[in-house]
């Protein structure tokens, strides 16, 4: 162990709680990944490919970015709702 590492350890011992405490980092990382995983839970696997194909179809007619299309599946009172949210560009040019 280098001298600076030893010094850090001693400092760490005396400092008590510090802002860069590793448990704060652990909590933040867990909150993000678990929120992400809960969001995915119970959703069918085809959602990703459905989203991709919908984007392709819409992009044929409208000039959109792939981030402008959001596909979501919600369950409420025993019925499933497929939500399709497309943000169109400001000036929609109808391409004929």
């Amino acid at each position: 162990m280098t001298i600076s590492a030893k010094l850090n350890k001693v400092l760490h011992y005396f400092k008590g709680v510090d802002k860069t405490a590793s448990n704060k980092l652990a909590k933040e990382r867990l909150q993000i990944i678990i929120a992400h995983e809960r969001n995915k839970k119970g959703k069918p696997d085809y959602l990703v490919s459905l989203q991709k194909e919908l984007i392709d179809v819409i992009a044929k007619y409208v000039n959109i970015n792939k981030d402008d299309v959001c596909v979501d599946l919600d369950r409420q009172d025993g019925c499933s709702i497929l939500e399709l949210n497309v943000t169109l560009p400001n000036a929609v040019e109808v391409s004929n």
Partner: protein
Amino acid sequence: MTKTIVVTSGKGGVGKTTTSASIAVGLACRGFKTAVLDFDIGLRNLDLIMGCERRVVYDFVNVIREEASLNQALIRDKHVKDLYILPASQTRDKDALTLEGVGKILEELSKTFDYIVCDSPAGIERGAHLAMYYADKAVIVTNPEVSSVRDSDRILGLLASKTKRAEEGADPISEHLLITRYSPNRVQRGDMLSLEDINDILSVPLLGVIPESQSVLRASNSGDPVIMDAESDAGQAYSDAVARLLGEEVAMRFVSKEKNNWLKRIFRIKEEIA
């Protein structure tokens, strides 16, 4: 009414078997007729923790395949009366357990037992699924550590969707969080997730906190569940957890930092050396 309790976690090595053994002993000590079942087919260990490894003749799979009766397979515990152990088999065939087979065994047990404790294997495969499928209550064992907390969240999702109660739309399984290997000193130093942190993430009612303790290894060495070591912090914490499982209100112990007591420290060092 018989209550079936699953002890589960997702992650391995967090203390499921230690917890199953201690909860089962704790319930039996209070006069409830209790059976504890090892679902870890191929890797049985509950027998070692309960100290009955040399008395195993028939196992879970023998009963399912009707090669032995349930009464022949159940091992009477040597510590407490009213406690019986059903060991897992050491066969590598994990498909030996079936949903119907497990259901039949639990049904037969519920004729005579008050509590059935199901010790789940790690992972989310068949054994873990079957251990939780018929449960009324779940004890989720979690270490204050990122991978364990994440896996516990996965298990909570499965408890809410892949169990009999969930499938039949009955009242959901009641969930109880048990935090093991907790070290208030390390939490204070900022090196370990705190109870509050874990609660913020999982939001499951806390059943108990088992402190990191030398007594747990000692207990497994001797084959006497740690709850029987009434002198030890971990043993007392398990007794508290059993009381809470039965609906009693008991204040949490061993959750705040020890005072920097030099005398105490010296005694602890002495104990560690001894």
